[in-house]
């Protein structure tokens, strides 16, 4: 398929623009020395050309609406269409973010401020935490915000020695980079090979007066719930350390466990996972941060407050705040969709979402564990991790299995993550998938396991039913072809 710039025809136009009214001088009032020498060589296309191009590109993609997408750790659930319809309402999409900061301005955005206030309240109740900020723009951005809160907390207490963050090796990939981004040093805590959970004895040996905090993911990336989480929290608190809860896996525990009830200090929630906002080819996301009482005063500015007359306003008077983490109030149109989702499902719907997510995962795990190695053979939560170690002996690796699934019409699970499982295949079906879909996936996985024994080479060749075969990644890194050069270069 041609690159869009190669479809360009000189003089073709894809957009119409308004004419200047009589009396407005079209002459440029900027001296030539400030102007670019040549126009930007953007493509010249008609609207139809553009629509055909992007329609063709979309045909080369695979989304949740295309088929089963059991990408572990990413919670690829169905994205309800009502959320998109609401987000397109002019009363939300058209609002300039400076409006409520103007004198008399908050009256212009009461509906939007109410959405923020109400959603923060709902997320606090769902998580059991005391307060929430919707500002962080994605999960990793939430981690950065949460780590900043922990840093500010310790600074506020003069705890200058607290420089280390302990992170279990079964935690999410972003965690160490987020802690380092705030100036901490990270140390990995091993997983107990028997339980698949954080090794609490090892943790006891590592925690000391330098420990600023611990980052937990529960259920962890193996899909296992740590029932000792309250003891971990107690241990941390007894050393003056705070506990961060990575809420990436919250879809497993809605109405079944609230981090706040275990005295977690700070957490983020990935709205694009648990609360069904679309992943959009990789973003935008939204990563609200919730805190316990001890961190409320450090939350980023601004905060939305409800006044006595039941109107809403922005509050910038937060002297201990970590300051601005986003230019305004976060990814408003993203979390608006999460708000619509929560209202649609209601209390019972949210509880059932987690129940079905966990049931779907356990069903798949039980049906597949005869064919693939299951390193941690115990009940799982919303996801589980298989290993292709059996198949690897025949020369069929996790990547081959992933590609063979593509040939059979499925998006592959996450592979080679978590790092603590060799040949990892991390499967998260989500609650919205039906038994028929799961059964078809089981069938495909079984066929692949059989082919690994009978005809391993066929799997090494996969995928064969796609528009391209496996890309040459070495060539990509070496060639450094990141954009189409200009002809005169």
């Amino acid at each position, binding site marked *: 398929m041609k690159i869009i710039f190669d479809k360009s025809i000189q003089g073709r136009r894809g957009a119409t*623009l308004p004419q200047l*009214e009589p009396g*407005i*001088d*079209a002459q440029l009032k*900027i001296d030539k020395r400030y102007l670019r*020498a040549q*126009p930007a060589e*953007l493509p010249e296309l008609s609207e139809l050309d*553009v*629509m055909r191009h992007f329609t063709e590109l979309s045909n080369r*993609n*695979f989304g949740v609406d295309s088929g089963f997408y059991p990408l572990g750790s990413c919670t690829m659930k169905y994205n309800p269409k009502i959320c998109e319809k609401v987000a397109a*309402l*002019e*009363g939300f999409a*058209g609002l300039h973010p*400076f409006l409520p900061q*103007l*004198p*008399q*301005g908050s009256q*212009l*955005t009461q*509906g939007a401020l109410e959405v923020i206030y109400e959603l923060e309240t709902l997320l606090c109740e769902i998580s*059991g935490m005391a307060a929430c900020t919707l500002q962080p*723009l994605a999960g990793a*951005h939430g981690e950065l915000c949460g780590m*900043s809160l922990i840093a500010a907390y310790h600074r506020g207490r003069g705890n200058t020695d607290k420089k280390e963050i302990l992170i279990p090796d079964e935690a999410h*990939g972003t965690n160490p980079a987020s802690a380092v*981004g705030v*100036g901490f040093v990270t140390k990995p805590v091993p997983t107990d090979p028997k339980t698949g959970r954080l090794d609490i004895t090892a943790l006891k040996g590592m925690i000391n007066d330098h420990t600023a905090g611990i980052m937990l993911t529960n259920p962890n990336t193996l899909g296992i*719930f740590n029932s000792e989480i309250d003891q971990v929290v107690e241990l941390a608190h007894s050393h003056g350390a705070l506990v961060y809860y990575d809420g990436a896996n919250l879809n497993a525990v809605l109405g*079944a466990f609230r981090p706040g*009830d275990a005295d977690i200090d700070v957490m983020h929630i990935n709205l694009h996972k648990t609360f069904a906002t*679309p992943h*959009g*080819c*990789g*973003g935008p996301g939204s990563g609200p941060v919730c805190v316990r009482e001890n961190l409320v005063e450090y939350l980023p500015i601004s905060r939305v407050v409800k006044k006595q007359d039941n109107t809403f306003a922005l509050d910038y008077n937060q002297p201990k705040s970590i300051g601005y983490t*986003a230019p305004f109030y*976060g990814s408003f*149109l993203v979390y608006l969709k999460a708000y619509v989702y929560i209202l*649609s499902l*209601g209390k*019972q*719907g*949210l*509880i059932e979402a987690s129940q079905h997510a966990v049931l779907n995962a*356990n*069903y798949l795990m*039980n049906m597949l564990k005869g064919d693939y190695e299951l390193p941690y053979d115990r009940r799982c939560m919303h996801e589980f991790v298989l290993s292709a170690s059996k198949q690897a002996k025949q020369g069929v690796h996790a990547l081959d299995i992933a590609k063979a699934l*593509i040939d059979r019409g499925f*998006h592959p699970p996450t592979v080679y993550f978590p790092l603590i499982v060799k040949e990892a295949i991390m499967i998260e079906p989500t609650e919205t998938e039906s*038994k028929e879909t799961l059964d078809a996936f089981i069938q495909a996985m079984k066929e692949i396991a059989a082919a690994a024994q009978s005809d391993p080479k066929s799997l090494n060749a996969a995928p064969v039913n*796609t528009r*391209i075969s496996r890309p040459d990644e070495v*060539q*990509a890194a070496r060639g450094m072809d*990141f954009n189409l050069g200009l002809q005169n270069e």
Partner: protein
Amino acid sequence: MSYISNTANQSQEMLAACGLSAMEDLFQDIPARLKPQSFNLPEAMSELEVHRHLKRMAGKNATNLTCFLGGGYYEHFIPAAVDAATMRSEFYTAYTPYQPEISQGTLQAVYEYQTQVCRLTSMDVSNASLYDGSTALYEACQMALNATGRARIIVDGGVNPIYCKILESYMANHAEIKLTKIPAAPGQAQRDKIKAALCDETAVLVLQNPNFFGTVDDHSDLVEKCHKRSVLVIQLVYPIAMALLKTPGELGVDIAIGEGQSLGIPLSFGGPYLGFLAATKNLVRKMPGRLVGRTVDRNGKECFVLTLQAREQHIRRDKAISNICTNQALCALRAHVYMSLMGREGLRELAGICHARAEFAKERFKQIPGVLVLENAPTFNEFTLQLPKKADAVVGELVQRGIVPGLPLGRFYPEMENYLLVAVTEMRTKAEICKLAESLESVL
């Protein structure tokens, strides 16, 4: 309204297959002492009810304003085809293109987006997007610190004050990094103050064009000065203005960043937006975020793939150059569709319209007694007015009449409480500009 497909019978069958009888059995790992102390949430709403409810809330927001607000975030018209193309669910319900064989749509689109950004800014390499312009500044500063091994950042007074605030809150955690802020003043970059601030520990100078006050500048002398001392330069640019103005690439800037909201992304009450970041070739391995490269598949067929992932958090963990994972792919796609529709001539013409209307507004406002248009240098589509009284009072009064005359600057700079920043895009007609002028006359 629930989106679960399985019926009660199917769930029972599946539970039985797991050797369980009830849903609660699935949660036995959660001990009783950890069960929720409360879960007090509203009852479910039907799609109709939820739509009505949200429409009512949207109705509490003002939509019929004549608005001259800018400050880095601009109301531009969005062609219908932008929504039609990007709302294809093969795009918006997909995730990061980890599986290139079924993600060529995303990957090619990102490659094309990277090309659009490079052509707009005349830079060598663009990444796949960052959260927004302000966090792009933070990431660009990290890049520069990393590349130079030096510790001081100098930020010109013309840089958006919100961006500065965000930079300050991140830097608060890094005592080793030092920030010099050149005092803000409307007009071009204050050369003498910047040159005086440059020192051997300076890693990077941050400039903005047009700057926060709307002033257009030619920073080539500053770039030259910086490069002589091995100091890098970040330039923050407004993408629509790039259709006309001298580009960061032409100026020799090392890292160009900006807010891509103007490129087909609605104002959305603050987000999601789009941070773009493009750099010179030699800085590519220091770049944060995703990067798509062109390569070939096993059969020699041209294709696209995520590349140089060794920079990223999921591979390098604590050694990664940034923690960014999720980016703004769908917003970048919107910008790409928008630029494709506008095209070479369309974007230039659009920039010309914004500029012409803003110039008309300047001329008209000059006729208002007591109003001063600050113009010791050219402006693009935004300019600063000095009013004979507090801008807050003027704005407060006009907002009641449905006109938002601009952004009062006293909120950011206490010494500028009579200053008003006015933005004019293609959305504002001659009649509306005249109406604003008359309204100003009536309250001043």
